[in-house]
């Protein structure tokens, strides 16, 4: 767009601004028309992706504070205190739309973006996780998207040398037209060494750092605020290409530069690149910025102000240093062969002023424009179909005749199968901190030089969120917490990616509101505030929206690393103990879907008190050092959970024989996904102590069997050789792509 392009109503519309929004913009500018560059900047700043205009009123209800919260939402990443002067900085972010258009680069740049968010805070990233969701395994696009997304995540994370240690991979028809890629990064930073995105100190230089600016990704942020269909898939040129090599240099150079006290503030250039980084930094500090576009390192010739300001070229940052200290910072970046140029200066007039060839091409009053940002209270309506899908009459569900066959079908179904085809492509050991590798409930990362470890997990049952967004979302929090507890960690805080359909539809907003309320309650119950995250709307193609998918990432701490656990049974003769209660609830289960082709019912009942007593009991038992394995029961129910205790991805297997005496129907006994249950194992001599500990917290606990042999036997219902099911379980994902 040439700087002289006239702003017509048509151009305004093309930029996705409504008439009212355009009027607001003009008013905030002091009753004048914006020029094309200013319009471009605002189409991005006020896009759903950057402005949270539809979600803000609901996000405000989420708990975001706590004694251990050092930084809540609003910065590049959230930060929690883990003691000993150390903090964990972490965030999860979506890159859904770019990954659908170009899965490899879309996923790769998603990882690149979230890594930058974490290391701009001064933290050295220690682990990546991700939540990725695809359409049905037999959908024609699924193999292509799965291969591309996994290879893209691997490419970026592996090259950066940040281990990708966990996550979730889910297949469901509802993602046929909109796959989801949510990338999570956690880093460690000393409490006194945290950096923030403030452009403070009038007269301080503003420095551009990293890759040169090209024409890539212009209007990525507005793309993320659009519904697919009607030719949008062809927006290929707007997809950015990632260069993890440059980002690795950027990481090392930034951390080196941050060791000096020359840097005042620093921020990643993410969506909307130079625009949002400079605008946000000045806005936080209450200052202005005067920027000269002739100084910006460019990759292409003849770039207009519009293109430079809106480019989403990757691997770039904006920093403000103390005046007079710019050279030492620039020298560090030059040492790492990166571009670093002073492109502007911090001013006191609260105006974002951009020049090119001596002419002012953009002049925006920051505070009035931030103040004028639209916030919508969108209409909300419970969908007409909601009550209907919750109806489930178990009497009409015929119990299988042969449970061995049913079990084999489930264990080999992609959602329950081993995900090693995925995580073997990720370097999950680089950094030599990964104590618990992918495949267990939570990843555990040691922190060198301390006795501590951090446990990380990402989870969400979106089918439950579809059936009941409130309780489905509350379950997502509970399950993450349970995963951490099973690894021996105390849950601390949450990051979330809220993936939903079109917010301009009242039914979608109802789902969103319910989901926020459910998560909110869950977070309050477990004392795990939400410290970072993002919202991704418009995940729908034609009329079909995805299931509401509030992907939740949770961080926990293990104070004594020797007291961590994995889910795998260890030794023959060990006792298997079930904590929690088996119920008849089958609503929304993988069993109903896979075996009865039914998506119906209510998610199982979640009793917060029962869940909390389970957590206390398990942590106390692990703390006593008597727990040999701990595994939470979730997707696929008790039978699948037991199989997961028996089998590791490297052909390591040990059998188990259990007997269950609950008064519930057999299919529910085996496959109900009722929460608040964990399977423990311990040596026989510790069993009584373990039961006593559980009971002291009011947590039901029963010995259900023992470890040993080469079979999994569950009462007289299931009797399978582990070798027979290992192949079904471990090869399932590979079959989708070959």
């Amino acid at each position: 767009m040439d700087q002289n392009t006239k702003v017509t109503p048509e151009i305004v519309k093309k930029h996705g601004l409504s008439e009212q929004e355009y009027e607001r913009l003009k008013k905030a500018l002091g009753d004048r028309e914006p020029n094309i560059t200013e319009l471009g900047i605002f189409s991005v700043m006020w896009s759903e992706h950057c402005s949270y205009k539809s979600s803000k009123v609901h996000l405000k209800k989420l708990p975001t504070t706590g004694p251990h919260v050092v930084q809540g939402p609003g910065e590049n990443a959230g930060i929690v205190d883990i003691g000993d002067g150390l903090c964990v900085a972490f965030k999860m972010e979506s890159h859904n739309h770019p990954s659908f258009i170009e899965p490899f680069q879309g996923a790769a740049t998603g990882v690149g973006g979230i890594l930058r968010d974490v290391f701009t805070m001064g933290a050295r990233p220690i682990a990546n996780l991700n939540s990725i969701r695809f359409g049905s395994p037999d959908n024609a696009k699924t193999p292509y998207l799965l291969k591309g997304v996994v290879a893209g995540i691997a490419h970026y994370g592996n090259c950066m040398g940040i281990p990708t240690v966990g996550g979730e991979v889910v297949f469901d028809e509802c993602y046929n037209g909109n796959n989801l890629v949510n990338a999570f990064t956690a880093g460690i930073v000393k409490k006194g060494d945290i950096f923030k995105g403030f452009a403070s100190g009038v007269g301080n230089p503003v420095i551009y750092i990293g890759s040169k600016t090209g024409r890539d990704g212009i209007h990525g942020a507005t793309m993320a605020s659009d519904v697919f269909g009607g030719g949008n898939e062809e927006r290929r040129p707007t997809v950015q290409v990632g260069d993890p090599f440059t980002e690795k240099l950027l990481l090392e150079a930034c951390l080196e530069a941050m060791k000096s006290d020359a840097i005042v503030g620093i921020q990643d250039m993410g969506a909307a690149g130079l625009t949002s980084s400079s605008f946000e930094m000045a806005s936080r500090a209450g200052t202005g910025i005067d920027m000269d576009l002739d100084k910006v390192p460019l990759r292409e010739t003849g770039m207009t102000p519009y293109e430079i300001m809106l480019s989403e070229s990757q691997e770039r940052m904006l920093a403000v240093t103390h005046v007079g200290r710019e050279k030492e910072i620039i020298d560090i970046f030059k040492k790492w062969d990166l571009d670093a140029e002073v492109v502007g200066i911090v001013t006191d007039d609260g105006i974002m002023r951009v020049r090119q060839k001596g002419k002012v091409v953009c002049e925006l009053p920051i505070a009035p424009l931030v103040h004028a940002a639209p916030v919508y209270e969108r209409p909300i309506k419970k969908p007409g179909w909601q009550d209907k899908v919750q109806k489930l009459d178990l009497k009409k569900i015929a119990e299988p005749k042969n449970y061995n066959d049913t079990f084999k079908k489930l264990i080999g179904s992609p959602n329950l199968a081993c995900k090693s085809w995925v995580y073997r492509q990720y370097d999950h050991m680089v950094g030599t901190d990964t104590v618990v590798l992918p495949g267990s409930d939570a990843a555990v990362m040691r922190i060198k030089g301390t006795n501590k470890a951090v446990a990380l997990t990402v989870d969400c049952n979106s089918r439950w969120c579809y059936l009941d967004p409130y309780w489905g979302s509350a379950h997502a929090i509970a399950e993450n917490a349970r995963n951490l507890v099973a690894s021996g960690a105390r849950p601390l805080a949450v990051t979330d990616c809220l993936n939903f359909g079109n917010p301009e539809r009242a039914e979608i907003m109802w789902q969103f509101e319910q989901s926020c309320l459910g998560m909110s309650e869950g977070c309050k119950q477990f004392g795990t505030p939400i410290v970072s995250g993002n919202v991704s709307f418009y995940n729908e193609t034609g009329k079909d929206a995805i299931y509401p998918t509030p992907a939740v990432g949770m961080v926990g701490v293990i104070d004594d690393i020797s007291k961590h656990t994995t889910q795998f049974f260890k030794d023959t003769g060990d006792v298997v103990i079930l904590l929690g209660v088996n119920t008849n609830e089958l609503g929304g289960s993988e069993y109903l879907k896979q075996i009865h082709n039914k998506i119906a019912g209510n998610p199982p009942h979640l009793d917060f008190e029962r869940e909390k007593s389970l957590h206390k009991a398990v942590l106390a038992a692990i703390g006593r050092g008597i727990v040999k394995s701990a595994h939470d029961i979730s997707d696929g129910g008790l039978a699948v959970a037991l199989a997961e205790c028996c089998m590791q991805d490297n052909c390591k297997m040990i059998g188990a024989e259990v007997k269950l005496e609950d008064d519930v129907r057999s299919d529910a006994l085996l496959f109900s996904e009722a929460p608040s249950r964990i399977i423990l194992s311990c040596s026989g001599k510790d069993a009584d102590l373990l039961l006593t500990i559980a009971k002291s917290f009011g947590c039901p606990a029963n010995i259900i069997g023992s470890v040993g042999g080469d079979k999994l036997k569950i009462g007289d219902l299931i009797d399978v050789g582990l070798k027979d099911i290992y192949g079904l379980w471990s090869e399932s994902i590979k079959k989708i792509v070959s």
Partner: protein
Amino acid sequence: MKFGIVVFPGSNCDRDSFHVPTKVCGQEAVYLWHKDADLKGVDCVILPGGFSYGDYLRCGAIAKQSPVMKSVIEHAKSGGYVIGICNGFQVLTESGLLPGVLMRNTSLTFICKYIQVKVNNKTPWTNKYDAGEVITLPIAHNEGNYFCDEVTLRRLESNGQIAFKYHGENPNGALADIAGITNEKGNVLGLMPHPERISELILGGTDGLRVFESIISTKK
């Protein structure tokens, strides 16, 4: 023994390779910057894993041109110890310190997992292992498929230069199951598996530690 860990732009196992000799083995170590030809008097150079220079063009191809590599080559030629792990192995073959080349895995995917290797304990890098001992080491690479011509292979075999062979499963298609080789004198080792990733019990084992202990034991 004094170790020097080379840092190329894109190296990402440099800190791991520093950690084991110092924190686990109690030796001295320094980082060696790629633009700097000074080896700071180290006894053993470690070329760490990672993606040196982005692995652009070919893995290790650009790294071999760096100032530090000129010194590393001299150091190796005068009998000094050099170990190249993963990307470091690729740098060693590209710079001609070791014969052959590492091609793309036959699976065409990056592979990160534990594998078993059989050790030839007749090298300075493996003297703490038993003859023919089978150990477990992690691999993490996209280009680990070792290849050389037949004459070279015969020479590697007859000179006892094959230090590690994949045992049971060959993960990447490597010729003759080769996981690691030394030069003729034995002072240069290149291997695809990462011994530094399995040198502490908390990480699941210490099968890799003896590579470091072996070389340290050669210094009287």
